[in-house]
């Protein structure tokens, strides 16, 4: 049971990440490769405040989100100069910069040694020490994130985002300042990713830079592509699929000597097949 609860918590964290990135990529058409960096900023801010200054989880997470908003605003302004593939490359580069800061600013982040001993959240004396209570907490925040995302995409603001995705020049002709819309959704997405980072830090109780590298961003993109771009349900389904599939493969009886490698091969093959037969994702409405 503890194992299933553990997987459910991971799914919750990745679901929030998927929702956050789908707003940016799926609904607005901005192919950002920097989401793991924002995930990391939230995680590190929360970890440092809780471990070094004894802050409560919720206060630390809010601060993490605020800090990430500032970082994302600055990065978003820089990336507003780019379009299309160049936007993706620029975001990749900025993600690498932030990862390098995690790794090399040892006085603050402890570098490769990471930050251990991050306590679990505590709310009015109730400690979310056991995994079941942590699951309920993270599920609550998945629901909150989903509702917030649905509100955004169903609003007039959301319609503008889709219009930017389809034809930015056309919507500019109507007088919309698309930079403001893109920047806003980029910051909102980053803040959501930061909160996912806070949850991750408090759950695993140890963070190090390796979790927040470009590979992490690629995994989050895989979630939304597999689940479906411009589909909130797709973000949730993608997270479920990409977390559970490799775990299911643990139970398949491959010989121990080659089990791990076979699982990787089967996992990759299944992803390829899914993309061949369902390029818009499991429940997506839009292809990249």
């Amino acid at each position, binding site marked *: *049971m*503890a*194992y299933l609860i*553990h*997987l459910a918590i*991971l799914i919750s964290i990745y679901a929030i990440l998927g929702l956050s990135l789908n707003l940016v990529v799926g609904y607005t058409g901005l192919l950002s490769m920097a989401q793991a960096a924002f995930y990391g900023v939230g995680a590190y801010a929360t970890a440092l405040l809780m471990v070094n200054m004894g802050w409560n989880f919720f206060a630390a997470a809010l601060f993490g989100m605020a800090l990430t908003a500032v970082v994302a605003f600055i990065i978003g302004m820089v990336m507003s100069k780019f379009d299309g593939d160049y936007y993706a490359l620029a975001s990749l580069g900025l993600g690498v910069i932030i990862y390098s800061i995690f*790794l*090399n600013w040892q006085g603050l982040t402890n*570098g*490769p*040694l*990471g930050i*251990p*001993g991050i306590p679990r959240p505590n709310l009015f004396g109730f400690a979310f020490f056991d995994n079941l209570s942590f699951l309920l907490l993270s599920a609550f925040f998945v629901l909150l994130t989903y509702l917030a995302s649905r509100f955004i995409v169903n609003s007039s603001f959301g319609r503008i985002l889709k219009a930017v995705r389809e034809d930015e020049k056309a919507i500019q002709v109507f007088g919309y300042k698309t930079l403001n819309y893109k920047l806003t959704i980029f910051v909102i997405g980053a803040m959501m990713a930061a909160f996912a980072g806070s949850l991750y830090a408090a759950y*695993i*109780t*140890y*963070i*190090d*830079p*390796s*979790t927040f590298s470009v590979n992490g961003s690629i995994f989050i993109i895989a979630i939304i592509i597999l689940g479906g771009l411009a589909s909130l349900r797709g973000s949730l389904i993608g997270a479920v*699929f990409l977390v559970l*599939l490799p*775990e*299911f*493969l*643990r*139970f*398949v*009886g491959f010989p*121990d*000597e080659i*089990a*791990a*490698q076979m*699982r*990787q091969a089967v996992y990759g093959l*299944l992803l390829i*097949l*899914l993309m061949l*037969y*369902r390029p818009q994702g*499991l429940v997506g409405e839009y292809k990249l």
Partner: protein
Amino acid sequence: MSKSKKIWIAVIIIFLVALIGWRWQVLRQKNTNAITVGVAVGETGDGSEWGQGEFNVYQMYADDINAAGGIDGHPIVLDVQDTKSTGEGTVTAVTKLISIDHVPVVLGPTWADSYQGANPIAEQAKTVLLTPSTALETIDHKENFTYLFSTYWPQLPEIQTLDGFMVSHQMKTLAVINDHDPFDTKFADELAADAATKGVSVVDREQVSIDTNDFRTEILKIKQMHPDAVFIEISNIAGLGPFMGQVKQLGLSAKIFSTADAQNADVVSKFGADMEGLAYSFPQEPTGTAYANFVQEYKTKYGTLPSAPSVMTAYNAIAALVAVLREGARTGTEIRDALYKVTVPGLGAANISFNNLGAITQANFDMKMIHNGQFVIITN
């Protein structure tokens, strides 16, 4: 049939196969009345060279035990999970071993110093983690993790052997290169600090990414500082070959040092003359042929020489575990309590025993050098 239906059918088939596989594993363990030992190794990812080597040693040792009748007639079954050499993967592997497979002890995880998330989980579940590739010096508040043991060499004796050699050979200046792995970073930091107390000035520090094979920028920067010695500590052992080759190409004349990982027959055979002159610390071999027999058996079974840096420490880990299992320890707490008292012959140390922090107590090192493709002792 629509594509969506085909995809869902495929998902259901995978789920059923996994379910059948899981039930088969559970039945296999029940039917054989085996002693199940959890194994959490990095079979994929950055730590795969280490993890695969550790797994090979465990399998070889377990096969030998089972061929001789097992432990009191019970065969050892290894329940192997891949940590993927990530923090999340390590937590998932250990959680699965504890909560689904109910193992009382886990050999591993690989690099539990880099991925510390599993330590509190095992502590709470009273499950022993007996890891061959963890520097306990990097574990914050280690005293809180009484179920965590490591057979990896303590850093300080090795550091003192290295910088003692430098001092005895009148080396006054040192450059240090390490990658971003926590163990390597900690080791390099401690060596630099200890060397400085002995009058060896650290003139340059360089950091590289874990899997790099291109050290030319760092070598050129170090060359400008004219150090007497250069110490390199990287997790990707195969990277020592390109490093040494680039040192020679770029004309860096300093004496090059590394750690026990450098004694790797595969790397030496692949990179040949480039490895000439590399000096390194290595655990003192006890008198006898234990290590040679181990190498021969490994080569016979797997067709290759043992190359992972943690093969000896993995051997020591499973040897210590089997010793306590023979004493009748079966639960996590019994195994833990027995490990604090056990003494067994080991590789690289005459005896393996643990102190009250779960670290091995014996670790003496020689200085060795690669010369004409051989590993030659230069001090003891």
